């Protein structure tokens, strides 16, 4: 097995082992064992850096369903490697942090199992070359995110946030799936690499733009882009390590990864450039605008994440212009934006991860994250304060921190884009740097709020639950490592640039050379530097007079937010579907049978008539022996008698007569497998019936009106007639070629003389496998319906 395939499966295997071993561990926190998983994986991926940075790529394939073009193909290039290193690296730090953050009363095995599930799924997303495999992993990240947000499921807000994130991201995921299928229709392959190499000839195809927008829908919902950003703030109900990991460093970057991965497919078109850039810029502005007004530190960080994701997104949009110009000077100029995007992607993970951990420490040590109750903590938490300053100043784009470098590059890119001589950027292009600058001012303001409102000002011990002290050493290790990275990257940015970002750039903009710059902190007094200085000055003034201009937020009325729209939509959806459902779900069994048989008669009988398959020919039939006639008469009598009996027991027994007679027919027609199955099924069903009757109230003959009886009789007779006609015309109507000859070779192909089982277990094994699953789900369903009732468990939950 290839090492990279193992890398994806390893977290899943580890997650499966957790329930088996966690009880045997005693007092040892299971997190210490789990910590090994991302750490080993990080080692594996770090080991690939030299090869990838010299321009190699790694591919491996497991054949899954080759007949449908679905294979478990792994492809590692520079872009995937960056994401893989982020997933495993941040994973290590976050798990280390969570060991100290979570209390022992939380269900740790669940937490770590979900987290590992997420890690494996996320690695699957960034390493898959096959679109359908990517989609499966994509949805798996949504599901594990759902489970982690609802980790404290007794809280109402947690459940609300989890549902919201699931609904929005899965909605986008479905759109993306449709986009993938369109790509497959166009190019005939699910492999991303093959699509990239052949898409050039399909740019005039009618499905090209629908596919593009659907793929973008998936990316925008996942990466919380405007107007789908509303799920991210509510996702903050998750434990802080989860927020740091999923909702800032990794999962929300999946959408950005998708945009980067598909830039070679759709990039270079005007639609892609403007959609990605504008959605990114609007998100950037709106996120930072909303962040300033937040009073909960985590909500503030959530909006700031939305805003920063918008920044990265818009950079990928601007960078796609390079593909319009192709290799050359212009390509290199606009390609810089993509380089900046990749750079900021890494930087954002470091500073936002650190900030989330800082907020987690404050929450953990003080008992609140409300900035109205915080203040003056610098004296109590000096180490945490240092990390907060490093993280915030990096996010604000101040020098000495890595955020400064990528922020300057962002300004360069936006100024370049303003003068873009294509995509009719001449008229509106100037808006790009303006929005970029305005949003950056607001970013500066909320970064100052994080630092100054929490750590400066007056300490208010009366408003706090606990006396603040520094957390245990282990909790400080992860933010410390991230802070060192933030400062380290500023001083040696080219180490990162040359070994990781440059190869990744080749993956996003293939064929564009010379776009990767030599990163330097100082390039003289140019426009970008003046923009930064302007941000500091204006931002400081805005922060100082926040109280005065904060009234701006009151302009938008309460009911006009996207959140209200979402809530209203959900409410009316529930109401209307309830109304619709209660119209036909009467709780009365005969009604349901009428629907089922009515549909069957119309669909099956209608097909029979319309396709002209109805043809009955008795001429080639073998003569019917007398014992078969007797058996048929017995069955008919039993069936008719069921209608008139007055007790349940008798009707069940008569039903049994029917079943066993069918089994005898199977014997007569030499189908021993069917006969055996029928016999045992009949026995089990009878036992089940008898058990159920034990609990039913006494049987009363129902008083049905004459009309109802006639209607039921018509449906019954028509149903029986349809089945009979189908059975009689089966032999005559050969609409398709027979497939039975394939199965005749069962002994050579499957080594079994029993052709029935060779079909069930081998030729049509896929059906059997899924039937097993359906059976299992049915069993669990019956169990939960009967056994689990609203007991103590549910009463603890908030409604």
């Amino acid at each position: 097995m290839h090492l990279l395939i193992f890398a994806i499966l390893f977290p899943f295997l580890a997650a499966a082992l957790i329930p088996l071993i966690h009880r045997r561990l005693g007092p040892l926190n299971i997190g210490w064992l789990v910590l090994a998983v991302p750490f080993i994986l990080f080692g594996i991926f770090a080991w690939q850096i030299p090869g990838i940075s010299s321009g190699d790529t790694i591919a491996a394939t497991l054949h899954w369903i080759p007949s449908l073009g679905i294979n478990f193909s792994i492809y590692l290039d520079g872009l995937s490697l960056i994401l893989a290193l982020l997933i495993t690296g941040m994973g290590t730090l976050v798990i280390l942090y969570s060991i100290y953050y979570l209390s022992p009363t939380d269900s740790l095995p669940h937490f770590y199992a979900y987290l590992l599930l997420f890690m494996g799924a996320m690695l699957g997303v960034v390493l898959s070359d096959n679109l359908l495999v990517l989609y499966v992993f994509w949805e798996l990240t949504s599901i594990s995110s759902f489970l982690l947000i609802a980790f404290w499921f007794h809280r109402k807000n947690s459940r609300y946030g989890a549902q919201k994130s699931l609904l929005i991201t899965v909605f986008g995921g479905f759109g993306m799936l449709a986009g993938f299928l369109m790509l497959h229709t166009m190019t005939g392959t699910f492999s991303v690499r093959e699509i990239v190499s052949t898409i050039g000839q399909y740019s005039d195809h009618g499905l090209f733009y629908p596919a593009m927008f659907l793929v973008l829908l998936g990316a925008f919902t996942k990466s919380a882009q405007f107007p789908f950003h509303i799920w991210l703030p509510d996702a903050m109900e998750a434990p802080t390590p989860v927020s740091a990991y999923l909702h800032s460093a990794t999962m929300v970057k999946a959408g950005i990864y998708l945009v980067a991965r598909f830039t070679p497919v759709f990039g270079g078109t005007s639609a892609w450039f403007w959609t990605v850039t504008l959605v990114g810029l609007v998100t950037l502005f709106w996120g930072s605008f909303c962040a300033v007004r937040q009073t909960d530190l985590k909500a503030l960080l959530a909006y700031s994440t939305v805003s920063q994701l918008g920044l990265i997104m818009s950079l990928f949009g601007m960078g796609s212009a390079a593909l319009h110009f192709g290799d050359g000077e212009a390509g290199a100029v606009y390609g810089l934006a993509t380089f900046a995007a990749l750079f900021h992607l890494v930087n954002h993970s470091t500073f936002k991860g650190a900030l989330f951990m800082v907020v987690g420490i404050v929450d953990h040590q003080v008992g609140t994250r409300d900035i109205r109750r915080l203040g003056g903590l610098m004296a109590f938490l000096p180490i945490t304060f240092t990390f907060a300053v490093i993280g915030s100043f990096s996010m604000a784009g101040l020098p000495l921190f890595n955020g400064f470098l990528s922020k300057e590059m962002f300004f360069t890119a936006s100024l370049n884009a303003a003068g873009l001589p294509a995509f009719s950027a001449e008229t509106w292009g100037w808006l790009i740097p303006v929005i970029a600058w305005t949003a950056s001012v607001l970013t500066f303001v909320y970064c100052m709020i994080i630092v100054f409102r929490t750590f400066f000002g007056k300490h208010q011990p009366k408003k706090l639950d606990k006396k603040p002290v520094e957390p245990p050493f282990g909790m400080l290790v992860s933010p410390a490592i991230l802070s060192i990275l933030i400062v380290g990257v500023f001083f040696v940015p080219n180490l990162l640039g040359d070994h990781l970002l440059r190869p990744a750039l080749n993956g996003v903009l293939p064929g564009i050379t010379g776009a990767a710059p030599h990163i330097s902190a100082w390039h003289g007094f140019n426009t970008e530097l003046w923009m930064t200085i302007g941000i500091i000055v204006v931002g400081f003034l805005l922060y100082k007079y926040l109280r005065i201009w904060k009234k701006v937020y009151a302009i938008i009325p309460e009911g006009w937010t996207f959140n209200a729209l979402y809530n209203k939509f959900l409410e009316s959806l529930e109401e209307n579907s309830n109304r619709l459902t209660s119209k036909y779900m009467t709780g009365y069994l005969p009604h349901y049978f009428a629907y089922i048989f009515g549909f069957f008669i119309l669909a099956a009988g209608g097909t029979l008539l319309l396709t002209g398959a109805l043809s009955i020919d008795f001429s080639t039939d073998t003569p019917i022996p007398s014992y078969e006639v007797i058996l048929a008469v017995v069955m008919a009598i039993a069936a008719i008698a069921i209608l008139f009996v007055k007790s349940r027991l008798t009707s069940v027994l008569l039903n049994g007569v029917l079943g066993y007679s069918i089994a005898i027919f199977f014997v007569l027609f030499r189908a021993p497998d069917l006969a055996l199955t029928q016999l045992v099924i009949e026995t089990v069903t009878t036992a089940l019936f008898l058990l159920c009757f034990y609990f039913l109230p006494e049987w009363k003959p129902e008083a049905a009106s004459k009309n109802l009886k006639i209607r039921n009789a018509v449906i019954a007779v028509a149903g029986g007639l349809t089945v009979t006609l189908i059975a009689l015309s089966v032999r005559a109507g050969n609409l398709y070629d027979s497939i039975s000859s394939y199965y005749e070779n069962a002994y050579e192909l499957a080594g079994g003389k029993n052709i029935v089982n060779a079909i069930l277990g081998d030729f049509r094994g896929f059906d059997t496998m899924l039937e097993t699953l359906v059976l299992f789900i049915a069993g669990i369903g019956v169990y939960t319906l009967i056994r689990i009732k609203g007991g103590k468990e549910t009463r603890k939950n908030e409604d």
Partner: protein
Amino acid sequence: MKINDVILKTVSQAGVLIILTFGVYLFLSGHNQPGGGFIGGLVLATAFVLMFLTFDSETVNKAIPFDFKKISALGVLLAFSSSALPMFFGQPFMSQTFGYFDLPIFGKTELATVTLFESGVALTVIGVVVNIITSISEDE
């Protein structure tokens, strides 16, 4: 549901053994003769159901301390994982193979990977059928 019936109990004790043997026979013979995972599992399940009907569930649970929910889960897991296994040997999902081996006592015997898959099916059927019947019968 408690029944105190000496004849039923005595007959069941012998009957269960016969049914269980028959179920295992059906399961193993399924490759070349009538039988197989589904029907084998179903027959085994009826043996357990007969036990639950004859004796009260406490006694049966003491005698066979399995959680039938877990057995059905194990079955699904086995069916899926045995299907995925060929992928790691360079074959497509759900590829099955067979071979003839000389075993002591049995002589020349055919061993097929489909047996693993079929045991998954059988375990699921046993688990689900027993689980449904006991859930319904024990409902208060």
